[in-house]
């Protein structure tokens, strides 16, 4: 790999300096969504449906409005009409129209002079409902006779004759699967289920918004993408995007769940109705769990043919996924291509349907669709490896995708690092540790596409030779540090001389959110190009001073140098000298780069987990955990490791504990952290990491996004380890103690 030679020359990339926002975040000074306040600010509260499915007959806010200090109430009647498509879905989710579609669906909002008063007023808003039949389970929603919860949700892709709750259909594949199954020594077929889980960011959604009677507004909001917030709020409220200025706060976790809007238009609408007074709205935890965007629940059939030597001859999947009461939200379009993405198999058939159900509108969650797909496919591969007594890593190496393999979803892979992750996992000491009684080991691989997307970055050279970088992707996990490192490396100046700021919507062109593992990749790529543009200008300034051609100047170690002896003999001109004189040499020096970034490198990882299962209680203890993943190039390795560890922890939670539990009444039974139990410190061991580096040719420093793949392998790896420990296979997540215990008892 040619880039490895380049890599040895890096001065800063690959080091682990302190993140620039670290001080603010350990002292409590960093300002998150709920930490903003403005003079004259009102507080808002939301009235939510207690029914899974109900017609809204009447909303009477007169008692609430009669309270002193209550300034405004908004209902759907206050929002513009005539929206279509996803804009209409967003508006329908912001405030219910004719029907409430899930437990927690917002029906009205109120603004008052204090938080307590707003809550009191919300309780006084009387809503009359006509309760309708509901359905929350994905298979039940598809069953004959299921209540059809919305008419006309099917798009062009749904063939005639499908159940009325089916919104989308997808099918693709290659090769002859029947011939493939005929050529196999064993063909196995199973059904797997995963429940909906929530991203579980610790910071609830929060914003402060102000909008005048002229429709000009401003908001401070915790979000992964403030241009998305601007566009969506503008659509829902019928205002112009340019009239809305959105400043992102620090963000307390997102994982995909803060790439869209839920309540954000409400404080704008309330502010406008309350004479332009700013309005703050902060969700409670139960509102977050009931009414933001969890992931889809899935029911998945998998069929695989394998020869005795482990060669996979064919694979077939049929996925059913529900993403709430709105079409287009379940990740079937991602889950299907991810299902067999780690393999090079001659014959594959993929089919999926999206079903709507009376649940909240799903949002993206870290590698959307991939963890469920991996649970189904990797679990069955593991079952077949155990049946044929084959090593799971050897089988994956035998069938694994490599450079030039035709991917399961069609295109040929360019440069990928799956095999390298498998080899590194095999060589890791964890893979050789002997297992004791009631212990088992699980292995799984995972994939995510990664994403580039719309990106705009500016860089300004300071008078003292420092550089300020303006990016539009909120920093959720250290991307200011990684982008600062790349800019400093490019300019040849110290890391401490680069300040990276996340700026508001008025300061840059449109940026997509921090999603798709793109911040370090895409904002980083654009920042490097912006730095190169500034270097070009600085070389021009030096050339003018030296009275030589700009082409005869080269940039290294933070200074302009004459390129070779023919260019003339001049001492290097540093960025500080150029910066201090730029006013007189032509004006401020900036670099910009605006691009829809392409060239993402696909991301692969392999996990190995050892568990011990208590046969008396069914409780699973994770003994040790290994994440191996290809980072392309690890710019700041500590934050790369952090992404691996955090993804693994979320995946372990999904595998062992986390699930949305709906009662027969269609209401969410566990909308607090006590009952929706995410992993706590005492649930987990240290999470070992190996960073594999197969540089991505599509990035100037070889970066691949690292954020998402890590959540994918834990689901099947943990279930497979439990199978190894107990001899029972759990095919329906989570592997909670009662479920595991019942399976052990049933086996006898």
């Amino acid at each position, binding site marked *: 790999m040619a880039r490895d030679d380049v890599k040895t020359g890096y001065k800063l990339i690959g080091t682990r300096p302190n993140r620039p926002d670290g001080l603010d975040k350990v002292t409590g000074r960093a300002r998150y969504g709920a930490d903003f306040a403005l003079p004259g600010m009102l507080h808002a509260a939301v009235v939510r449906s207690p029914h899974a499915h109900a017609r809204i007959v009447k909303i009477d806010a007169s008692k609430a409005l009669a309270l002193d200090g209550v300034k405004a109430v908004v209902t759907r009647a206050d929002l513009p009409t005539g929206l279509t498509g996803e804009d209409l879905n967003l508006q329908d989710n912001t405030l219910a129209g004719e029907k409430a579609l899930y437990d927690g669906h917002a029906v009205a909002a109120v603004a008052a002079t204090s938080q307590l008063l707003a809550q009191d007023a919300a309780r006084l808003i009387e809503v009359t409902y006509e309760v309708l039949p509901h359905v929350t389970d994905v298979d039940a929603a598809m069953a004959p006779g299921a209540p059809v919860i919305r008419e006309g949700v099917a798009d062009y892709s749904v063939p005639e004759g499908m159940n009325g709750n089916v919104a989308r259909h997808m099918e693709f594949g290659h090769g002859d699967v029947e011939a493939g199954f005929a050529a196999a020594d064993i063909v196995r077929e199973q059904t797997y289920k995963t429940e909906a889980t929530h991203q579980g960011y610790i910071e609830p959604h929060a914003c402060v918004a102000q909008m005048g009677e002229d429709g000009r507004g401003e908001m401070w909001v915790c979000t992964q993408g403030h241009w998305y917030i601007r566009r969506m709020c503008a659509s829902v409220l019928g205002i112009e995007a340019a009239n809305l200025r959105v400043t992102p706060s620090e963000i307390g976790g997102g994982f995909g769940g803060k790439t869209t809007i839920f309540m954000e238009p409400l404080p704008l609408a309330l502010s406008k109705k309350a004479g332009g007074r700013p309005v703050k709205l902060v969700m409670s935890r139960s509102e977050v769990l009931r009414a933001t965007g969890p992931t889809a629940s899935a029911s998945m059939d998998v069929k695989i043919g394998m020869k005795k030597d482990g060669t996979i001859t064919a694979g077939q999947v049929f996925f059913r996924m529900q993403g709430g009461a709105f079409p287009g939200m379940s990740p079937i379009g991602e889950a299907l291509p991810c299902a067999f993405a780690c393999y090079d198999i001659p014959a594959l058939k993929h089919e999926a349907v999206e079903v709507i159900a009376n649940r909240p509108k799903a949002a993206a969650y870290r590698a959307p669709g991939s963890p469920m797909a991996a649970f189904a496919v990797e679990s069955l591969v593991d079952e077949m490896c155990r049946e044929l007594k084959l090593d799971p890593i050897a089988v994956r190496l035998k069938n694994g995708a490599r450079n030039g393999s035709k991917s399961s979803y*069609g295109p040929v892979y360019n440069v990928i690092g799956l095999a390298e992750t498998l080899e590194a996992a095999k060589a890791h000491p964890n893979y050789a540790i002997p297992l004791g009684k009631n212990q088992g080991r699980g292995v799984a691989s995972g994939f995510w596409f990664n994403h580039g997307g719309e990106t705009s970055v500016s860089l300004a050279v300071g008078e003292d030779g420092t550089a300020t970088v303006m990016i539009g992707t909120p920093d959720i996990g250290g991307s200011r540090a990684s982008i600062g490192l790349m800019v400093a490396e490019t300019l040849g100046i110290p890391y401490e001389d680069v300040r990276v700021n996340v700026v508001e919507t008025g300061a840059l062109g449109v940026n997509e959110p921090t999603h798709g593992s793109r911040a370090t990749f895409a904002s980083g790529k654009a920042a490097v190009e912006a730095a190169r543009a500034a270097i070009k200008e600085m070389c021009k300034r030096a050339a003018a001073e030296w009275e030589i051609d700009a082409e005869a100047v080269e940039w290294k170690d933070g200074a302009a140098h004459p390129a070779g002896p023919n260019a003339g003999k001049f001492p290097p001109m540093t960025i500080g000298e150029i910066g201090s004189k730029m006013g007189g040499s032509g004006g401020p020096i900036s670099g910009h780069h605006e691009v829809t970034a392409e060239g993402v490198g696909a991301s692969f990882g392999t996990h190995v987990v050892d568990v011990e299962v208590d046969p008396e209680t069914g409780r699973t203890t994770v003994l040790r955990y290994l994440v191996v993943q290809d980072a392309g190039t690890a710019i700041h390795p500590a934050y790369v490791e952090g992404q691996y560890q955090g993804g693994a922890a979320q995946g372990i939670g999904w595998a062992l504990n986390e699930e949305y539990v709906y009662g027969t009444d269609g209401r969410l039974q566990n909308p607090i952290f006590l009952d929706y139990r995410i992993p706590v410190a005492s649930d987990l061991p240290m999470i070992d990491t190996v960073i594999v580096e197969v540089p991505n040719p599509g990035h100037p420093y070889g970066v691949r996004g690292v954020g998402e793949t890590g959540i994918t392998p834990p689901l099947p790896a943990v279930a497979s380890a439990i199978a190894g420990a107990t001899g029972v296979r759990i095919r329906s997540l989570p592997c909670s103690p009662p479920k595991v215990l019942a399976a052990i008892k049933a086996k006898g």
Partner: protein
Amino acid sequence: MAKVHLWASLRRFAEGQEVVEVEAATVGQLLDALERAHPGLGPAIKAGLSVAVDGEVIANNRAAPVAPGSEVFLLQRLKGG
């Protein structure tokens, strides 16, 4: 002519063909030509598509180049977390 591979459920909008050949220098031209030749594909294209051109996934860029003989796969528009 670029070879465009349609996923199975799109083929019924293109007379059952799995691979459709179109003349195009960019992704945008390719999608326009597809819709002209097979109007039934219009809703799918309007719903948002990603494409892979010779192995490179193009999430959303009509200006991305397509070469004569490029192998192009249509994908549903991808989301990320």
